[in-house]
C-alpha cells in the first residue's frame, strides 16, 4: 500500500512540534530557576526554535 506524502509531512510537523515544545518547556524551567537570566534564555530559545521551525517548513514544501 502506498502511503501518501502528506502523512510524511504530518510526521515531520509532529516531530518539529515536539522539539519546539521541549525547547519552550526547558526555557520555562530555566527561567524559573534563574529569573535574572531571562533575556539570555529567551534569545537562545528563539534561535533554537527558529532552527527547528525551518525543518518543519521543509515538510510543507517536500514532495
Amino acid at each position: 500500500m502506498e502511503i501518501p506524502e502528506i502523512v510524511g509531512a504530518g510526521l515531520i510537523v509532529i516531530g518539529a512540534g515536539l522539539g519546539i515544545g521541549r525547547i519552550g518547556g526547558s526555557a520555562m524551567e530555566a527561567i524559573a530557576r534563574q529569573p535574572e537570566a531571562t533575556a539570555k534564555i529567551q534569545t537562545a530559545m528563539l534561535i533554537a526554535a527558529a532552527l527547528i521551525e525551518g525543518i518543519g517548513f521543509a515538510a510543507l514544501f517536500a514532495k
Partner: protein
Amino acid sequence: MHYNIFSKLSVSLALFSATSLIVPANAQEQSHQEDSDSIGVYIKETIEHHLSDSYDFTITEGVSFPLPVILYDEGIKMFMSSEFHHGESLAEVNGNFYALYHSKVYKTEANGVLWLGSIDDNHRSEISEKIKEGFTGKLTIRSEEDVSYYMVQHASSGHHDSEEDQSEVITVSKCDENGQINEGEYPTNAKPLDFSITKNVFMILVMAISMFFLFKGAARAYKTGQTPRKAGRFLEPLIIYVRDEIAIPNIGKQHYKRYMSYLLTVFFFIWFMNLAGMTPLGINVTGNITITFSLALITFLITQASGNKHYWMHILWMPGVPVILKPVMAIIELIGLFVKPFSLMIRLYANMLAGHVVLMSIIGLIFVFGSWLVSPAFFGLTLVLSLLELLVAALQAYIFTMLTALYFGSAVEEHDHH
C-alpha cells in the same frame, strides 16, 4: 512550490466541505455538494491571486490600477499592464506582441496564439491557418499514422463588445477526443526579460521611500538636541534594541558599527513588509521566495566578505581536531556555509506564506460552511490568528536580524586562545 500548498489545502477544504454536509443546512445534498466544490475552487483561486505577484494593484474586487510593464526584448519595451485587459487581449509595442498568461508575460505572433505544452511544428502552421479563418473549439488534425486533437480557445469571455479591433489572446493546447485538455501545461512561447514594476516591486519602492523619510526625520531631531521627536520617539527604542540586544552581543563591541546600517535596514524592512502583509490589500512581499532569497544572498555575501583569517581557518582546516577528520569537517563546514542563508530564506518565506494561507483558508471556511452557527467561531479564530500573525511579523524580523548578526559575528570573531 506554491501549487503544492494549494493541493494540500484543497484536500483539507474537501474534507471540510464533506463535514459541512453534517451541519443542518440545505436538504438537497447533491446540489449542496456541488456548491461547496465550486466555492472551494473559488477560495483556492482567491488565495492564489492574493499570494502571487501581479501586474496590477488590486485594492478590492473590481477596483485596481495598472502598473508599468517593462520588458527587455531587443530593446526596452514599456507599456501599462491595462493593455492586457487581465490577460484577455494582446499588448502591442512597435510590432511586437505580448500576452499575459497566469501572471507571466509571453511573446506571441500577431495572431496572439499561446502554444500550451509541446505542439508539433508541422501542426502549428495548420492550426494558425484555421485560427485566421476564425476557428474556435476542438480541432482534429489527421496525419498518416495518427490523429491529433487540439483545443483552440479565446481568452476573453466574449461579451465585451467595445473595441472590437483589439486583438485577442488565443490558447492552443492538446486534448483527447472528448475535448478534455491536459491541465497544467505552460506556454512554450518565448519569454522576454521582465523588469516590470509589479505589485511587489511597487510595494518595495513605496516602503523604501517612506522608510527613507521616516528615518531621515527621526535622525534630524538629534542635530538640535538629544531627545527624539515625532516618529523618532517610536523608532529610538527599537533602534537601540537592535543595537544593544542584537548587534553588540553577537558581533562584539569592536566591529558592530560596520553592520548596524544593514541590520537596521533588514529589521525594519522585514517588519514593515510583514505588517503591510496584514492589511487586506493582498501584499505578500516577504512571502515571496525571490525577495527572501535576495535578502539571504546579501547576508551571505556580507558574511563571506567580512570573514577574517580565523573564520576561513575554522571552515577549511578546523583547529583542534585530528588530521584525518579535518577534510571531513571542511566539507561539512562548506555545506553549512550555504545551508545558513538557505534556512534564512526558507524560514521567512514559509512563515509568511503559511500565515497568509492559514488565515485566508479559515476565512474561506466561513463561505464553505455558509452557516450562521459556525461563522462566529471562524471569525473569532481569524481574529486570534491575526493577532498571532502580528506577533509573528515582529518575531520573524527579529530572528532574521538576530541570525544575520550571529553569522556576521562568527565571521569577525577574534580568537585569542591560539
